[in-house]
Each structure stands twice: as structure tokens, then as C-alpha cells.
């Protein structure tokens, strides 16, 4: 089963069903949960930030989703000049569409007929959160971080993505200041679709590079 297919049914906003989380209030707090609550309270008491600041940050992160990245991709597919600006300066191009991509520079890497891009952070889990939301667990896992640089095609195959031998696979290890977004190729059969519909084809996994957009159903 292709992860890309699961996501495209939800038009890029949904995920595969998540495991049930037991109600936290019924269980004792763990050491690290206590630490999180205590540190938060102490920093508010000391005036480092307010409870309102904290709530607003959480709300802001909750509002981030792959829909932002998908909007950029869909616009790039339909507007060649925008695509150039996206590749030149992703943060600035995002602002054109009313998306706040923050101050950490994001680099968009474009898939071509002869090159497929995929992103990993072997040293930690750097990820363009402001354009895609929080990363999935697997992106942060030991298996992904260790194997993607060494055997990208095998890992891509596990995601159901087969890249032909005559297409180069380019792995980007996000080691320093930049975050990366993959600009997938526009799928065949998508002519005449409007931007919103095109954005619906672009899943989070396509913008990490472990999937490619499905051709639209007719």
C-alpha cells in the first residue's frame, strides 16, 4: 500500500489512522511530563514568557500542516515565474501566498525527469515545520536517519516508491542552517485542474521526497 495514496484520499490534510492515545489524565505523570509542566510554569512565574504566549505558540504549531507546502507546489506548477522565485528564496515566495515560513531559510529542490530528491536529517530531525507541520515519527527514527543516506532506493521502495535506474536519486542531509522542501513533478493527466485541486495531489510525503504525487483519478 502506498503512503502517497493514503494521503491523497484525504487531499493532503489527513494521515493514516493514528494509534489510540490513552487518556493522559487517567495515568500518573511521567518524569518527563512533570519536567515539561514544571519548566513551563516556572518560566511563566519568572516572566520569561506568559501563559498566553505558550498557548499561542501551541495554537500556531497546530495550525501548520502540509497544506501550506502543497499551496506553494500547486502555484509553482501553474506559474513558471513563481516557481523561479520559489527556488530562489522559498521563505519570500511563501509570503507572497500569505504563508509565514519563518526566518530559518528553506531551500526548495526541484524533481526533474532525470533527478529525484529526498530529504533526511541524519544528525537530528531538521524539517521545514512551518510549511509541513510537525514531522512524522518515522522521519526521526534511527532506521530512516541511518539508511536513507546509504541505501535511499531501498528505503524509497519500502515507501512504495520505485525510482528507475536512469533517474538519479539525490539525497539531501539537512546538516546545518537550511531546511528542505521537495518540489515534486506535476503528474500527467493533471492538465486543466485548478490550483486547489492540484494542491490536493501534493501530500506531505511528496514534499519530503519519499513519495511522488499520484496521477489524478478521473
Amino acid at each position, binding site marked *: 500500500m502506498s503512503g502517497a495514496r493514503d494521503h491523497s484520499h484525504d487531499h493532503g490534510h489527513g494521515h493514516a489512522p493514528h*494509534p489510540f*492515545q490513552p487518556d493522559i489524565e487517567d495515568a500518573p505523570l511521567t518524569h*518527563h511530563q512533570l519536567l515539561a509542566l*514544571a*519548566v513551563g510554569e*516556572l*518560566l511563566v512565574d519568572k516572566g520569561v514568557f506568559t501563559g498566553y504566549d505558550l498557548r499561542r505558540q*501551541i495554537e500556531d504549531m497546530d495550525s501548520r500542516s502540509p497544506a501550506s507546502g502543497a499551496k506553494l507546489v500547486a502555484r509553482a506548477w501553474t506559474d513558471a515565474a513563481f516557481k523561479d522565485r520559489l527556488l530562489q528564496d522559498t521563505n519570500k515566495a511563501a509570503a507572497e501566498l500569505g504563508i509565514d515560513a519563518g526566518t530559518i531559510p528553506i531551500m526548495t529542490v526541484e524533481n526533474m525527469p532525470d533527478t529525484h530528491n529526498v530529504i533526511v536529517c541524519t*544528525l537530528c530531525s531538521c524539517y521545514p515545520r512551518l510549511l509541513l507541520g510537525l514531522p512524522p515519527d518515522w522521519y526521526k527514527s534511527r532506521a530512516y536517519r541511518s539508511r536513507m543516506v546509504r541505501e535511499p532506493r531501498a528505503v524509497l521502495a519500502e515507501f512504495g516508491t520505485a525510482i528507475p535506474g536512469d533517474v538519479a536519486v539525490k539525497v539531501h542531509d539537512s546538516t546545518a542552517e537550511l531546511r528542505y522542501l521537495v518540489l515534486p513533478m506535476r503528474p500527467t493527466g493533471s492538465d486543466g485542474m485548478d490550483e486547489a485541486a492540484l494542491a490536493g495531489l501534493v501530500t506531505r510525503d511528496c514534499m519530503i521526497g519519499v513519495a511522488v504525487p499520484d496521477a489524478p483519478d478521473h
Partner: protein
Amino acid sequence: MLAAPPSLSHTRRMSVDKEAHMRRHHDMGGLEAGPVERREHDYAPWEKRVDAIMRLLSDPKRRILRVDELRRGIEALGPGAYDELSYYERWIASIADNLIEKGVITIDELGRRMAEIEARHEAERAKGRAE
């Protein structure tokens, strides 16, 4: 083109490296591992809180903790903790260590507040069971 294939000397060099040159635990590119488990989970409220705390601390307005310091603190937790703790458990452990080191919070007040919160939580749970 290079004059000689790099593979032989590179392989020999890599095995010498393994013996003589420490690879830090978090620096895991190229290590062998099993299949990628396609796990995802909805982030729990406490995890989102940790994420928000870090963003506020590292905000240019405050610059109390840099992301480089967070990373260094996580790396310093050591292999055991790194593998056993979840992603945001590592984050909050590093944040707490860093804030203590910087004197933003003291161990004493942290410990007292954690005990207080635990007591509060237990009281809520007991109340919940009684109702």
C-alpha cells in the same frame, strides 16, 4: 576520473576509523538498521508544550536557549537515554539541563514544582475516581 578505485582503501580506512575514531551516538548516517516503521502519532499536549517552550526560549526576542545548545544537550544525554527516551523526552531533558546550567532555574525550585504538580495531579485523579 580518479586513478585508482577508492573502494579498497576506503573500506580499510573505514574499519580503522571504527576502532580509532569515536562516532557519537546521534551521528547515525550510514549505520545498519531494520525496516523503517511507518509509525505516526498525534502529538500529546505535553509534547506540544515542550515544542512551544523551546520556540519561545529561542525566539530572537529572548535568545535564552539556542537550538545548537538544545542539540548539544540531547547529544550529551548519552546512548542509553538517547535510545530509551522519546523525541520530546530528550528535548525536555536537554532544555531542563541547559536552563539549570544557565541559572535560569534552580534544581531546588524545579524539584519542588515537580513534586507540587505531581501532588496536584494525583489529587485530581483521586477526585475523578471518587465521582
